[in-house]
């Protein structure tokens, strides 16, 4: 243990702790800007500087480790002036429009300026040139607002193993962006929006489809339905000041009705459909391998996360046959809303407008993929992020706090707890095992409260195994088989896992991948700022939602049973093949 003092207060911390974290222990706040939990601290912005007795230069506390006997001061005139100078310099270059900026409510640069009490800027520097990039469906970049903190560079390279953003050029002309400062569409970007999630300012955010949704709502000829992903209900409250991890399912439903949607449905419904289709597909692949002894692509990888799909298409095209052919729940919903539901309503697919609320920017990309027109028209018309829904509710003058809890509409609004946990890393795996195990053995998954605890939580790669015994006659070939599964979240973790599988170092039957750290609850479209404490709170909320339901298994959802009886026939049948399954294409990363 290391002993030091911070502002004369003694503190003892393990060796290797940074001054920033040691200060937090004794309640001393040091402002930061480029620093982000989980990423390599680069000490680039110099906002977190402190004075250390005996050292000539101020030190960046985010990257400087403590040392025995160190005497640190965080609040001297020199420190205050240095911090102010850094922030004033940033403000002088910043090409901002605070009154209309997307980040006006949660801008870290504004907050920092306020925290340091800056009232005037002593530099009259050149402004960073304004340049807007709307070349991809998911993201909007505004170069003029970039303060070059490089958080996005680190997250894209280290957490996502993509490297779409990098420092380009040198000196004052350095710009953070894709190769040669071209548009984002010219490089391999998986549209995950993790860059937008960590950007402290309005330099990267989602492309907004709010106007498109208002237009549809105001169009009397359109029947406008909305679906909400499971992760929204555990995060939307944060837009209205509720603590992270508050479940607002009922209020969210009420708010959507008051916004004017004609029907409020749930992506959870098609999450249940996904589980039924996907576990059938897994079992079919296992039968092909074990009974027919035919070559078949195993392990099977989940396919609900569109950023992961793009990642595989760009960087691991050789595993595309291993991806489940199931569309994501969002796209299954769109396809069913414009066919099954349209038929019930007696309208054409074109008369229905499907809006989605997703925790995700990649979903904006996904819905415009050319193959996502199974209904004969675009299956999903517009995707809003959680943040955008929060803004719409605010703009409609709805007092969120005062809303009653309401229920979603039938039939596409009914779901099981297994669908809720799609939001968490490990959740799709758990939901699939709940159904697959029961299909094979006729008994419920023999785990504590149906939870597959080894694949839950924030570890990067997680594994579990289930041994099958006393299988039903149809599945007797699985008797004694140890079904091995793995779960990865964050694409760098997924990348390592894929490499290990390809190298033959790891053997699994089924692998779940979610693009974002923590799963969808940590998506690029969620309220800012998402750190591990927020992730844990949202994850816990989602498990509470699951446990609070009597219906915990996808295949028991009565609305789903009706759907198969009335419309789809069998899982993997002719109709579901056409509406619910898809294909992938290899893409060149350069």
């Amino acid at each position, binding site marked *: 243990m290391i002993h030091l003092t911070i502002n004369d207060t003694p503190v003892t911390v393990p060796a290797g702790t940074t001054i920033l974290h040691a200060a937090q222990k004794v309640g001393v706040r040091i402002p930061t800007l480029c620093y982000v939990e989980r990423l390599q601290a680069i000490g680039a912005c110099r906002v977190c500087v402190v004075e250390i007795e005996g050292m000539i230069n101020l030190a960046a506390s985010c990257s400087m480790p403590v040392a025995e006997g160190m005497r640190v001061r965080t609040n001297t005139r020199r420190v205050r002036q240095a911090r102010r100078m850094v922030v004033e310099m940033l403000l002088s270059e910043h090409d901002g429009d605070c009154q209309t900026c997307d980040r006006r409510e949660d801008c870290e640069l504004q907050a920092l300026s306020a925290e340091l009490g800056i009232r005037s800027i002593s530099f009259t520097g050149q402004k960073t040139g304004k340049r807007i990039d709307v070349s991809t469906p998911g993201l909007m970049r505004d170069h003029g607002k970039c303060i070059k903190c490089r958080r996005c560079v680190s997250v894209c*390279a280290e957490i996502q193993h993509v490297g779409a953003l*990098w420092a*380009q050029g040198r000196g004052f002309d350095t710009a953070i*962006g894709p190769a040669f400062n071209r548009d984002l569409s010219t490089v391999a970007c998986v549209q995950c929006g993790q860059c937008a999630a960590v950007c402290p300012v309005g330099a990267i955010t989602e492309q907004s489809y709010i106007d498109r949704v208002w237009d549809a709502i105001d169009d009397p000829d359109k029947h406008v339905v909305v679906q909400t992903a499971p992760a929204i209900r555990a995060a939307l409250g944060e837009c209205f000041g509720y603590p992270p991890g508050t479940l607002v399912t009922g209020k969210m439903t009420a708010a959507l009705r008051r916004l004017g949607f004609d029907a409020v449905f749930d992506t959870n419904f098609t999450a249940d459909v996904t589980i039924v289709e996907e576990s059938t597909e897994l079992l079919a692949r296992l039968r092909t391998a074990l009974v027919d002894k035919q070559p078949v692509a195993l392990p099977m990888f989940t396919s609900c996360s569109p950023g992961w799909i793009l990642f595989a298409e760009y960087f691991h095209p050789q595993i595309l046959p291993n991806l489940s052919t199931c569309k994501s729940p969002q796209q299954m919903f769109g396809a069913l809303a414009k066919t099954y539901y349209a038929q019930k309503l007696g309208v054409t697919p074109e008369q229905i407008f499907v809006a989605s609320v997703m925790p995700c920017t990649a979903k904006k990309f996904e819905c415009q993929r050319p193959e996502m027109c199974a209904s004969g028209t675009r299956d999903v018309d517009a995707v809003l992020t959680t943040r955008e829904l929060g803004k719409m509710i605010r703009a409609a003058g709805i007092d969120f706090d005062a809303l009653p809890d309401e229920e979603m509409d039938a039939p596409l609004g009914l779901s099981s707890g297994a669908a809720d946990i799609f939001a968490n890393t490990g959740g799709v795996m758990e939901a699939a095992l709940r159904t697959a195990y029961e299909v094979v053995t006729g008994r419920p998954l023999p785990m504590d409260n149906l939870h597959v605890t080894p694949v839950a939580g924030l570890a990067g790669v997680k594994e579990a195994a289930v041994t099958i015994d006393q299988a039903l006659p149809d599945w007797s070939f699985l008797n004694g088989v140890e079904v091995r599964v793995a779960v990865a979240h964050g694409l760098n973790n997924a990348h390592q896992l894929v490499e290990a599988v390809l190298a033959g170092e790891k053997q699994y039957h089924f692998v779940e991948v979610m693009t974002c750290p923590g799963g969808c609850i940590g998506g690029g479209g969620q309220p800012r700022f998402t750190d591990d404490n927020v992730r844990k709170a949202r994850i816990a909320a989602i498990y509470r939602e699951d446990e609070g339901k009597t219906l915990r298994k996808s295949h028991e959802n009565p609305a789903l049973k009706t759907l198969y009886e009335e419309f789809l026939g069998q899982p993997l049948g002719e109709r579901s093949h056409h509406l619910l399954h898809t294909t992938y294409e290899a893409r060149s*990363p*350069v």
Partner: protein
Amino acid sequence: MAAEGMSCAACQEVDDEQRYAQLDDILTQYQGVQGALIPVLQMAQAIFGYLPDAALRRISTALGKSYSEVAGVVGFYSFFTTVPRGRHLIRVCLGTACYVRGGKNVLAALRSALRVEVGETTPDQMFSLDVGRCFGACGLAPVIMVDDDVHERVRPGQLMGILDKYRGGGATEQDAAQSEPMREEE
């Protein structure tokens, strides 16, 4: 002979094929090697005379570095260029001494004689124009450098004569010596 080679499209293609084959050899050698990006870029520039986009993409794939990272590194170091260079690089000194003693006028004359801006190359790929900061010959200002030759006390009126020396078959010994190894490899 060399001039013919440069202007013949078919030969250019053959040359390019050989150059990319050379690059691929290097990339095979450096696959999986830590810190390979900068040396590989330097070698690629030596092969092509500049860094063509297709070469950058190939390097990105082979070394497992994103295209944006490769571009970022290329943009960070001033010795990398992504624009094809002409056979001869003309650099006009704009250090203080040269600037006040007519360097500016020399540059203006070159721009209009070659019809290119600083950083550009003539359409016949003969000359690239660039500026420099002090070649250490302030006593002889204004100075321009063509390839490795220093030309002192240059007046705009002399420029045509200087350029002609480098045009066509009339290359200097220096120039011949420089391009010799390349021709042997070809």
